[in-house]
């Protein structure tokens, strides 16, 4: 084999090896900023009549789900803004909020048609079939006992078509807004009938400067894509 042929052979080998490497280095990227990872998911019970159940109670506290032995990683500086913004949208949709400094919450709940709860996860969760910490906020409810945050009556992602209908993976700082039919609460079976639910994944994670903007955008989007609430 001549020198020229040898050089040519190694040149070809070099091409074969270097071309895929060069190509791989140009592979397209994905998410670069926190706001590109925001997801808003909503769903509702289409058998529920929202128009005739427009009195609601919403606690003035966001429940942070913190695993035992861990500290709360999500700060509460956005809590008031979140609750206020939700209340504003509910008012726009025609709902009346029951709130009082003098009347016990349990009485207000009994009087309301629906209860709106807001839950934020302080830990990353993944698994199958339930929302982490579900019902944690209901600790005040007399005689209530929760079995590991399980929503027996939860309509989980029916017909979703995205490939993860029965699984979940929530980042730290994910927020859940849930509307519960007060009349349908089954104390014996411990079933909370969720009539509307919004999930905002990973909203409060990180310390991005635009978190407030992301919070506002996500909550607005929850209601924007839930026009059935505006009956």
């Amino acid at each position, binding site marked *: 084999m001549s020198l020229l*042929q040898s050089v040519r*052979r190694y040149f070809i080998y070099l091409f*074969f090896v270097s*071309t895929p490497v060069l190509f791989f280095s140009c592979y397209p990227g*994905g*998410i670069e900023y926190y706001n590109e990872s925001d997801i808003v998911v909503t*769903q509702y019970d289409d058998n529920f009549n929202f128009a005739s159940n427009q009195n609601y109670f919403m606690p003035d506290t966001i429940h942070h789900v913190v695993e035992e032995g861990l500290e709360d990683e999500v700060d509460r500086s956005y809590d008031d803004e979140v609750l206020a913004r939700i209340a504003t949208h509910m008012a726009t949709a025609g709902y009346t909020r029951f709130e009082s400094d003098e009347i016990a919450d349990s009485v207000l709940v009994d009087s309301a048609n629906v209860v709106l709860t807001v839950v934020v996860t302080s830990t990353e969760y993944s698994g199958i079939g339930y929302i982490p910490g579900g019902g944690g906020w209901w600790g005040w409810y007399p005689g209530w006992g929760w079995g590991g945050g399980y929503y027996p009556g939860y309509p989980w992602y029916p017909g*979703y078509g*995205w490939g993860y209908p029965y699984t979940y993976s929530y980042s730290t700082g994910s927020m859940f807004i849930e509307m519960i039919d007060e009349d349908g609460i089954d104390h014996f079976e411990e079933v909370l009938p969720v009539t509307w639910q919004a999930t905002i*994944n990973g909203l409060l994670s990180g310390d991005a400067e635009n978190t407030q903007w992301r919070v506002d955008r996500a909550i607005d989007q929850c209601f924007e894509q839930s026009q059935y609430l505006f009956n």
Partner: protein
Amino acid sequence: MKILIALSALLLSANGFGQFVYTDVTYDVSVPLGNTSDFISKTSFRGMTLRVGRFVTDDLAVDVRFSWNTFYETKDFETYTSEDGISSVTGKQFKYINSFPLTAGVRYVLNSSSDFSPYFAGGLGAYKINERRDMGIYYVEDMIWHFGFYPEIGFIYDFSYSVGLNVYARYDYALKTQDATAHSYIAFGVGLHFGD
């Protein structure tokens, strides 16, 4: 890929780098068609083809080919609703298709003894197509093997000793499977041809 390397080694070792063996290394620009275009409409500027062939007559060659064509597109912050209207999801979508054809084919060369040699080619084989969409921390990915084929037209222009320019247009078609739709695109390639 291992199969390609093995076949390539076999072809290369048959006659060394003698006049009957050629290799092509090309850069591909691919235009999506059909279902591929429905999923990602943007033209792909990330693609390559590696090919090793051997002439069995003066005009006719057989070869093996491996390509990698990546399609990519981002969508704005948009809302998608399930067919029953119950569930909606809003987010920014990132979509990818990675197509990896591994084919065997034939090439018929016109004017094979001249510096400028147009050719017609075609072949068939396996197409591994990975279709993926990301939204937030979620992703859905289908990695499906298809059976597919390609016709191709192009030319070789020898500008130096045993080195030439290879330009072609190739239509890659991966047939639908039980789990996936068909995919198709036209790849325009330019690169180097080694061999007489």
